[in-house]
Every structure is written in structure tokens, then in C-alpha cells.
């Protein structure tokens, strides 16, 4: 089953817990979890709902690949494929 969009994915193993994405998120759907990764950083998490795909968190994050934002799915004629 394809996951719904828009949504944000944060790879916890690549998060350094700086909190900058949380601060930038206009929808307030990111939060600092109590989970600690292999480095010992508390990592940022997505609430699972409410992302608008604005991408603010992506540009806020200093790490290259920690955050991926999947914007709204564009409907294309894929039915026949």
C-alpha cells in the first residue's frame, strides 16, 4: 500500500537532534521524541498527520539526507499502466 502524501520522513539514525526542523514547521507537526539514536541524540519525529509538504523542515535540516518531504501526489493517468 502506498503511503499517503504529503508527508515527511525523518531517518532517526541520521538525526542530530538540533530541533531546527521542529521550530521551522509551520504546521507544528514535528516534535522532539524521547527516542535516542545510536549517537545518543534525541531525534525529531513526525506526528504522522498534518504535513502540507511545504518543505521548510527539509531546508531547515543541516543534514543532507535526514529529512525527505513527499509533496502532494499529482494525479496522472496511471490507471492503464
Amino acid at each position, binding site marked *: 500500500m502506498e503511503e499517503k*502524501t504529503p508527508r515527511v520522513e525523518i*531517518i532517526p*539514525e*541520521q538525526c*542530530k*537532534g*538540533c*530541533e*531546527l526542523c521542529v*521550530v*521551522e514547521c509551520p504546521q507544528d507537526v514535528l516534535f522532539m521524541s524521547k527516542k535516542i539514536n545510536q549517537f545518543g*541524540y534525541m531525534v525529531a519525529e513526525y506526528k504522522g498527520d498534518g504535513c502540507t*509538504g511545504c*518543505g*521548510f523542515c*527539509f*531546508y*531547515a*535540516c*543541516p*543534514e*543532507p*539526507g*535526514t*529529512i*525527505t*518531504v*513527499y*509533496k*502532494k*501526489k*499529482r494525479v*496522472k493517468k*496511471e490507471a492503464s499502466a
Partner: protein
Amino acid sequence: MQEVLGKPEGFVDNFVRKPGDYPKVTHYCPGCGHGRVHKLIAEAMADLEISDKTVLISPVGCTVFAYYYFDCGNIQSAHGRAPAVGTGVGRSNPGSITISYQGDGDLGAIGTAEIIHAANRGENMTVIFVNNGIYGMTGGQMAPTTLEGQVTTTTPTGRDIDEAGHPMRMSEMIATLEAPVFVERTAVTDTKNIMKTRKAIRKALKSQKDGYGFSFVEILSSCPIGWKMKPVAANQRITDEMVPYFPLKNFKDEIENRSPRPTKTVDPDPNKIIEVLGVDKDERLFKKDQSFIDNFKDQHVRIAGFGGQGVLLAGTTLGYLGMETGLNTTWLPSYGPEMRGGTANCHIVLSNKEVGSPLVEKASTLIAMNQPSLNEFGVTVKPGGLIVINSSTVEGKYTERDDVTCLYIPMNEIAESLGVMQAANMAALTAYLAYSKAFDVDMLTSLIKANFKKKTLIEKNVAVIQKTYEYVKENYLN
């Protein structure tokens, strides 16, 4: 289909050059502004499709390891020298993109000269200047951009502007120069400013891609560890404390007003080199005469006078005569400030053997074009030697020596009478050759005809040679 905002393609997939076990994360501290800037550059490189032809230079500072990350050619360079290295690499790879990624200590302190001059030359280069007001990698010392009162490890009581000077505004300085096309200061504090930074970086790189030359983007950025602050608070500090001193604005945007410069290829044609250097034709003025060479008596000649008398040219002319007849020849001039003092002299050695020292300490012949030269060098002439004296400028006879032969030649008068004042040196040379018979005077004439370019000058010089020869014959060769 969905639009994805993820790791830009301008990054390598795995940071394999980075030591350790985690090839997906950077070496930067949590919340470091460099990461944000890196992402914007990587994205721009991918979107502008320039990563294949981009060379990124990272000098010393926290970004010394930028080559772990970017999917382009990477050069690590010495502290502050990236703009010089960029000058070299950019000129060597015409049409490529050069990015110099520098910190504040690098660009504003140790490398001030390099950045100013690369900007002033308008090198094809985009400089990304990350200003966080502190030396991050070295351990939190004062940077040229550290704010007044800011505590660092080298300003433990805060930066005292009376002692350490004021924080330097580099963008403002760069913008005063003519060549840069685009100079802007931004900040990576919040989304709005990050987007402005994104736009500035793209504009700068695009302008370079399109051939406009030098662009400069200063980015205020946080160093949470160096500042001893949490990342969120550190970003707030940029807004509250740095921005009031370092205003965020565009200082210069001349892209619209200028034309792209054509790419200057550097690919010299070997045939052209041979032609320009003239090393293809082996012409000899005189046929080699082995008996002349074998019978040649070593000549140690000193020619001296004041600047403008053609002393050095007389010397090289004699040297050419030596070369063209197959002798070994050296010519050593006075040089540097010695010449600026208005005097000139040179040493010429001519021999059929290999010449050791090119210095003429004891001249077999002295040509003295004026009184000071005669005074200084007359005493150095070998017993039995020859002194050719310019009697136009030297009054009376030379009485210091009775063991040398003196010729008194009115060099100026001879030259002037033929309307070529500057040929007094030719008169000098002719007198020496006519009397010493080191070379046939005709050889000098042939050489002048071959080496001088202007026809009228040749004729006049030849006339001087002839008249001097007559003078010597009449007065000294009986």
C-alpha cells in the same frame, strides 16, 4: 508521480571519503549552519546541471572536509588561499565552474589579500563566504567578524574594539570593487532567509555558468558549539545580534547591465610558439671561420658610462659579434637600483675556450664613456691594455696610468655630426674594434644591418662606424 524534496543530487550518495562508520551523516556539529549552506549548493549544482564541471575548493576551517560531500571535482587548499587556487584552476579549465567555499577567518583574516584580488580581477568564481563570527574548527577563537563584546577563547572578556578593531564587513568591501557582478549578504536563520540564501546562491552560480565572472554570497550562519548555545537559540542570536551589524541585503547586482565574457581557452598552438619564439630557423650571420676562432685572443671588456649612452647595447652588440663568429661570449650588466642611479656598465668576455667567470675584474679593454667611469675603472685595466675614452665628455688626458694605451675619441661629436646622437656607443665600439682588431669593423656593419630594424637608423649607424674608423685610422693607425 510525486514531487520529493530529498537529499540533492549534488551530494555524493555515500560519504565514503569521510572516515568512520556513518557515511550518510556529515562531520558537522548538531545545528551547524554549514549543513544548510551545503544543501543549498548541492541542490543548485544539480538543478543548474553543473556538478560535472564544478570544482569546489575548500580551504582550512570546518569546511576543510567539504570534499566528503559534494559530487564534483574537489580541491582542498591552504588556509585563506582558495581564491588564488581558484584563479589557477578556473583559468586552467575554461568553461568550468569554480566555487570557493570559505569561512570568516579564512576569507577575512589570513586570506584577505587573496579574496580582494581575485574579486578585483573578476575571476570566474563564486565565493560562498560563511560568516559565523568565530573560528569553529580551531577552538572558538576570535574571527575578524566577531562582534564587539563577544566572548571567544582569545577574547575571554569580550572583543575590545580598541584592541582588536571592529568586526569586518567583507561584502561591503568586495562590493566597492568594479569587477564583481553580484554581491549579497543573506542568513540561514529561518525559512524566509534560507530561501533568500537559496536564491542568491543559484543566482551567483548561474551568473558564473553564463560567463559573468565573479560573484560573492556572504551567509550569516550559526556555530552553536563555538558560541556555546543551543542550535535554536544560536539562530536567534544571528537575528538579534549579527544582523543589526551585518545588514542582510544585496550590495551589487550588475548581471543585467553586463555582457557575458567569452570563454578564454588556454591551448597554445605549438606552431605558434615556435613562430613567436623564432626558434625554427638556425641562421648564422657569418660563415664559421675556424682559423679566426683558433687565433682569437681572449677579450675582457668593460664598458661604462651614464644611463642613456647605450653602454649596455654596445655590450650586447659585442656579444652578438662573438656569438655570430662562433666564439664563447658572456655579457653581464649592472642592474637594479645601480642603474637607477644613472650609471651603467657591463662586462663582456669573448673567448675561444669555455668562459669561467663572466666578471671582468681586470679588463683588457675599458670603454669609458664619461669621466666617473674612467676614474672608477681605469685602474682595473691590465697592464698593456687599452682604454677607449670619450673625449667629448672627458677633459684632458688620462695620466693615472702609463702602462696602458689610451684612445681619445670624440664620440658625441662624431655621432652628432651625423645626426644620431644616440650612436656614440657605436663610435666607441668601432674605435675599440679598429684599434684592437678583435673583429673586423665590417663585421660590426653587417651585424648592425642584420639586427637593426629601422632603415634610416641603420644608415646613420653605419655612417658613424665609417667616420669613427676613419678617425682612428688617421690618428692612431699609422
